[in-house]
C-alpha cells in the first residue's frame, strides 16, 4: 500500500501542475498501472483521513462474478472429490484395516499389521509374504537407479547434438519422437520378440540362444537387460522434446562469449548448457523418477506376467504388486500404495531441496 500511495502522490503532483486551472475540483484522468494491472483513479478525499485515490479496473469488474465461478467449477469439484481426494484418504484408511473386503467393505480390525506383512516382518495366515521385499522393492529401485540417470544423460546428449545439426533437424527430431506415439503393450511385445532367445538380438551379437535367455526362462539379472533397454527407449522421446525446447530458448550470446574465452565444447556443455538447462533437467528428473517408480505396463508387455516363467514373481514391481493384490488382498495393496506414495513424496522433496542450490531460473 505504501508503494501505491507514493506513485499516486507523484502523479498527483505532476497532474496538478498541468491542471492549475481546475484547482477547486481537480479532474484527473485514470491512469493505467501496468505493473499491477490496475487502473488508478485519483479522487478528491471525502473524509479527512481517506486515501486520495481509488483502485478500480478489471479485477473489480470480474469480482462481481464471485458466486458464478463456483457453478463453473462444480463439475470438476465433484469429480475431484469423488475420484481424487476421497480415494486418497480412503486408501490411506484401508492400509490400516485388517482384511478389508473390496466387495462388502467389511474389515476385522484397525491394525498396522498390513505394513508388517508386506515387509515380510509378520506372518499372514501362517505364511510370510516375501514377494514384496524380495522382488518388488529391489526391482523398483533398480529400475529407477538404472534407467533415470542413463536415459536423462543420453537424451541430453542427443538433444544437444540434434540442436547443432544444420540439415534434417526437423526430420530427425520427428524420428526421435516416434516412440512416444505408441502403445506401450504393443511395443513391449515387439521387444520381447526381439529379445526372444531365437530373436534378432542374440543373432546380431552372435550369442548362443540356449545360453542367453532374456525373456522366457531368463534369470532375473538377464531379464533386466531388455527391461531397461525398453524403458530407456520409450522414455527418450519425451525427454528429448523437453530438452530441445529448452535448448532453443538459450540465448546464442552465451555460446559466443564462451567461444571467445576459448572454452572447449565439453566445457561449454558442462558449464554453459547444463546450468542454463537446469529448470528442464529438474522437471525431467522429477517426472521420470515418478514414472520409473510406477513401472508396470512395460513388464506386462515384455513378460506377459510378473516373472520370466509361470509362477515366477522375480519381475514384480511395487505397482505390479498393488494391481495384483487389488481385489484379493485390498489391505496389502493399499499398504503398498501408501508406501509408494511416501517414497515418491520423499524423492520429489529431496530433488526440490537439491535443486534450490543447483537450478538457475
Amino acid at each position, binding site marked *: 500500500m505504501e508503494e501505491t500511495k507514493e506513485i499516486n502522490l507523484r502523479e498527483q503532483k505532476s497532474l496538478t501542475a498541468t491542471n492549475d486551472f481546475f484547482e477547486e475540483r481537480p479532474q484527473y484522468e485514470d491512469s493505467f498501472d501496468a505493473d499491477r494491472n490496475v487502473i488508478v483513479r485519483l479522487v478528491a478525499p471525502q473524509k479527512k483521513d481517506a486515501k486520495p485515490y481509488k483502485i478500480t479496473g478489471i*479485477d473489480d*469488474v*470480474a469480482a462481481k*462474478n*464471485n*458466486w*458464478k*465461478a463456483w457453478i*463453473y*467449477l462444480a463439475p*470438476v469439484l465433484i*469429480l*475431484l472429490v469423488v*475420484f481424487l*481426494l476421497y*480415494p*486418497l484418504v*480412503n*486408501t490411506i484408511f*484401508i492400509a490400516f484395516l485388517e482384511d478389508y473386503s473390496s466387495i462388502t467393505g467389511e474389515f476385522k480390525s484397525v491394525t498396522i499389521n498390513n505394513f508388517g506383512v508386506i515387509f515380510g516382518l509378520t506372518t499372514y495366515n501362517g505364511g510370510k509374504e516375501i514377494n514384496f521385499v524380495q522382488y518388488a522393492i529391489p526391482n523398483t529401485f533398480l529400475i529407477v537407479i538404472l534407467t533415470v540417470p542413463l536415459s536423462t544423460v543420453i537424451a541430453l546428449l542427443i538433444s544437444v*547434438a540434434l540442436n*547443432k*545439426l544444420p540439415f534434417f533437424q526437423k526430420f*530427425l527430431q520427428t*524420428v*526421435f*519422437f*516416434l*516412440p*512416444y*506415439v*505408441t*502403445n*506401450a*503393450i*504393443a511395443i513391449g*511385445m*515387439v521387444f520381447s*520378440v*526381439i529379445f*526372444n532367445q*531365437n530373436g534378432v538380438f542374440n*543373432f*546380431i551379437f552372435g550369442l548362443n*540362444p540356449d545360453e542367453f535367455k532374456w525373456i522366457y526362462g531368463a534369470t532375473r539379472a538377464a531379464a533386466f537387460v531388455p527391461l531397461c533397454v525398453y524403458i530407456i*527407449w520409450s522414455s527418450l522421446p519425451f525427454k528429448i522434446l523437453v530438452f530441445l*525446447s529448452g535448448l532453443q530458448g538459450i540465448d546464442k550470446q552465451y555460446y559466443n562469449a564462451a567461444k571467445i574465452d576459448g572454452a572447449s565444447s565439453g566445457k561449454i556443455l558442462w558449464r554453459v548448457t547444463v546450468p542454463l538447462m537446469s529448470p528442464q533437467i529438474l*522437471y525431467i528428473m522429477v517426472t521420470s523418477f515418478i514414472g520409473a*517408480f510406477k513401472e508396470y505396463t512395460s513388464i*506386462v508387455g515384455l513378460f506377459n506376467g510378473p516373472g520370466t516363467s509361470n509362477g515366477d514373481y522375480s519381475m514384480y514391481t511395487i*505397482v505390479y504388486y*498393488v494391481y495384483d493384490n*487389488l481385489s484379493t488382498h485390498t489391505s496389502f495393496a*493399499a499398504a503398498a*500404495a501408501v508406501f*509408494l*506414495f511416501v517414497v*515418491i*513424496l520423499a524423492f*520429489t522433496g529431496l530433488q526440490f531441496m537439491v535443486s534450490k542450490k543447483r537450478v538457475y531460473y
Partner: protein
Amino acid sequence: MNENNLKAILVEGLKTPTPESTQKKYIDFAQVKFTQKIVLSLEESGKTVDAIRRNQKIGNIFSTIILYLIIGALALFMIFPFYWMIITSLKFNDEIIASTQTFYPTIIMWSNYVYVFQSFDFTQYLGNTLVVAVFSTLGTLITTIIAAFAFGRLQFKGREALFMVFLMTMMIPGEMMVISNYITVASFGWTGTGQTRLDAYLAMIVPFWISVFYIYLLRQNIKQIPNELYLSSKVDGKSDWTFLWRVVVPLVAPTLISITILKFMGTWNSYVWPNLVTNSPEFRLISNGLRGSAFTDADTGRTSFGYQMAATVLVTVPLFLLFVFFRKYIMRGVGRAGIKG
C-alpha cells in the same frame, strides 16, 4: 613501408603493451601508398589465418559428419523396433524362429493379418476403444474448459488456494486412487456380476472426466488472452458464458486439439483400469485384447509371433496416422506438458 614492416608492427601491437610497444600499436595509414598491396597476415604456429580457417572448416565438416553418423545410428535404434514389428508380422513362423535371422521376409505372409482379423476380435476392441475415447474426451474437454475459464478469468475468494489443491493432486501417484476408485465404481453398480455394456463403458469413462493437468495447461493459455477482449465483451453486454464459448474457445482451439489428441492416445494405451473394471473380454479395450489374446499356432500350439506382431501393427497404425496428421499439436502439447493420457 613494405609488407614485412607492417607485419612486424601488427604482431608487436598484439603483444601485451609495454611502454615501447604501445608507441607502435597502430599502423600509420598515412604512410601507406595506395598502390601498395597490403597483406595483413598473422602467424600462429607457422600457419596463416587462411590456413587456420581452412583447417577449422575441415574439422567442422568432419565433426558434423561424425555427429550425423552417431545421430543416424541412434535414430536407427529408435525405429528398429517398428521395422522389426512390421517385417515379423509378414514372416512365415518358421522363419521368425530360425537360427539365421533375415532382415526382410522371404515369403510375404499376408495371411497373418487375415488370421488376426478372424481370431483376434479387432473390430470389437476398436469399437469399445472408440466409444470410450470419444466420450471420455468430450467429458474432459467440457469440464476442463469451464474449470480453466473459472481459474483463469473469473475472480472468487480462495481461487489461488483451490488451484494449489488442484496442482498438489498431480503429485499423487494414480495407484493411490485406483484402489479406492475400484471400490467406488463397484458401489455405483458399474462392475461386478451382471455388468452390462453400458456399465462397463461408464466405469471406463466417468472417472477420467477430470484431468488436473489439462486444466492447468488450459488455464495458462486462457490467462494470455488480453483483458481488453473480456472488457469489450462486457461493454457489449455479453455474459461470461457467451464470452467463454464465442471468444475464449476459438482462441484456445490449438490447445484443445492437443488435449483431444493426447486424451485419445491415453485411452488407446490404457490397460490397467479397463482390465480391472470389466468382467468379460468383450467389453475391454485394444491393449487388453492385444495382451489377452493367445495367438497360438493351430499346428504347434506355440505362440505365433507372426500373428502377434500382425496384431501389434494393427494397434500401432492408427496411432501413427494420428501422429502423421497432428504431429504439430501432439509435439506442442507434449512439449508443454508431458503426461500421457
